[in-house]
């Protein structure tokens, strides 16, 4: 499936929104406005946007602790997202969830997840339910390289495969699970090699190349929708920032980080758009600036939003 120029421009806009959201998130944290921690996906935008672009609006995703990008790519309302990040009543989870649990259930985002691999078994259930109900919808499940070494990954991939469920497993291999490098954590060269063990196709792509991600995930989505079962796609990418706010980057070199910044997925897509649809430099900057402005507006909305009402603290608690 080729994307129209308007759609391509929109994907660039989404990547800039993610970058802008997370830079702002970092900034708000530095100002002491955010309680807790956060996990930034700066440098990984093509993985989120390229993958979700392969879905229909009513398809589902399951996200991770590093989920701001997935959420924006799935079309979340930035105001409600920022409000959730800031713990406000107007947020997607009414301030109960925060950065690690943003869910836009109506929009098909079944939630970020604080537990590594926590979403992978849920994807089996979502896929099963689509099959049972004959909805024709697909479930795309994001997870990291670290998650691929947890027990739930193995159980879930097998179940999805034996029941030919409409699930696409997208492993965002940013090469580290906190400090633990994928090079040490796996005895195989590619995480996608594991697909063979479960009887599904596996593919590894350059996760900083939006087009490559889009193409691979599109193939997997088509297969899922055609009733042929799940696939595993591995997007090789890199996170520019520390794992979370407690990370002193002791396990990798400045040179390595700088080298990956040279492979900026946004700049790369812009260069490609300049060729493919003659996107001009001023046009690209306009997209970027509009994204930063949208995030400022979201912060203004969140700032002006009320805190949850303490009197309602136990509302929704049923057992």
């Amino acid at each position: 499936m080729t994307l129209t120029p308007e759609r391509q421009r929109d994907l660039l806009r989404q990547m800039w929104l993610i970058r802008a959201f997370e830079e702002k998130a970092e900034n708000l944290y530095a100002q002491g406005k955010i309680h807790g921690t956060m996990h930034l996906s700066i440098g990984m935008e093509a993985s989120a946007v390229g993958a979700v672009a392969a879905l229909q609006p009513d398809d589902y995703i399951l996200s991770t602790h590093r989920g701001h990008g997935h959420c924006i790519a799935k079309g979340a309302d930035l105001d409600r997202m920022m409000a959730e990040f800031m713990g406000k009543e107007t947020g997607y989870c009414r301030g109960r969830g925060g950065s690690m649990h943003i869910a836009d259930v109506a929009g098909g985002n079944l939630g970020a997840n604080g537990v590594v691999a926590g979403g992978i078994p849920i994807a089996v259930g979502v896929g099963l339910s689509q099959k049972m109900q004959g909805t024709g919808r697909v479930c795309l499940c994001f997870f990291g390289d670290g998650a691929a070494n947890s027990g739930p990954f193995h159980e879930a991939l097998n179940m999805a495969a034996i029941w030919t469920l409409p699930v696409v497993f997208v492993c965002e291999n940013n090469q580290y699970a906190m400090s633990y490098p994928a090079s040490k954590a796996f005895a195989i060269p590619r995480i996608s090699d594991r697909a063979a063990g479960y009887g599904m196709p596996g593919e590894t792509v350059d996760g900083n190349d939006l087009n490559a991600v889009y193409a691979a995930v599109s193939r997997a989505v088509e297969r899922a929708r055609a009733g042929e079962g799940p696939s595993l796609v591995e997007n090789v990418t890199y996170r520019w920032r520390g794992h979370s706010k407690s990370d002193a980057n002791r396990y990798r070199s400045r040179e390595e980080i700088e080298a990956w910044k040279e492979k900026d997925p946004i700049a790369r897509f812009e260069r490609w758009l300049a060729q493919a649809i003659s996107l001009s430099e001023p046009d690209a900057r306009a997209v970027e600036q509009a994204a930063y402005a949208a995030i400022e507006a979201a912060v203004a909305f969140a700032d002006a939003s009320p805190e949850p009402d303490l009197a309602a603290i136990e509302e929704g608690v049923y057992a």
Partner: protein
Amino acid sequence: MRELSYLEAIREALQQEMRRDPRVFVIGEDVGVYGGAFGVTRGLVEEFGEQRIIDTPISELGIAGAITGAALTGMRPVGEIMFMDFTTLAIEQLVNQAAKIRFMFGGTATVPFVLRCPAGSGTGAAAQHSQSLENWFVHVPGLKVVMPSTPYDAKGLLLAAIRDDNPVIFVEQKLLYKTRGPVPEEDYTVPLGKADIKRAGRDLTIVATGVMVARALEAAEQLAREGIEVEVVDPRTLKPLDAELIIQSVSKTGRVLIVHEAARTGGYGGELAAIIAESEAFDYLDAPIVRLAGRDMPIPYNRTLEYHTVPQVENIVEAARQLAQGRV
């Protein structure tokens, strides 16, 4: 005496015991160069190397199994589960295997490991990174459960736990990591199964665990100004419990308030209340036993809601005052 933080006290215990006993090793996620999510093991890999400070994949069940198997065959491992919430993934090996082996094998084997579990709320980490699950493990015959509240106890209890021949779940409340207190440099142990009177008083006993001990002491300080003398008892080891000290204290004061962070229903407080009610202290009670615990709800992200989900100093003061004044 020299002061250390709770975190440094734990690190020192690990370091001293690893120097003393070559069977001891540390295993967990990011315990090496990262130093653990909270920095507890920072610097240890530089001293002991990757053979004894072992980073693992994100495989909690694997960690639990690795410490079980290694303990079964001559080692004394100290595992770390990054957040106690993720013991949920390790629980098969802990509950069905490690806890049962010694008894089930007719006493022909032991499983001497420690599993360190940072726990609790107060850090804005929301529902999946803030739980206090200690009572799950208390419920399982075959596991010891330790919950130190001060740097001194943390070091002494950890040394005792590593030397113990049985599996010990070692609960470290994250909010305590930065708290400071006197810690001897030398090797010492705080025996498992021994409670401690953290403050003596005649009017009312507060039995508190973990971070609630410090809050109870602060509350006791305030209440003393009102003329209410509170005795604060810290079980330190939840299992096996030093019931005797608690019963003695309650028999003396005639009133008891139990405080913990974990959710109220099915929490440790219920067990404590039952033990007190079943004991001779029952005859001395001048008021019903009162529990103050976390609300029965997931920990919310919002800072204000989170604060009001678990007992704070003002809640303890209020509950203790009511109890002391016979308004319960």
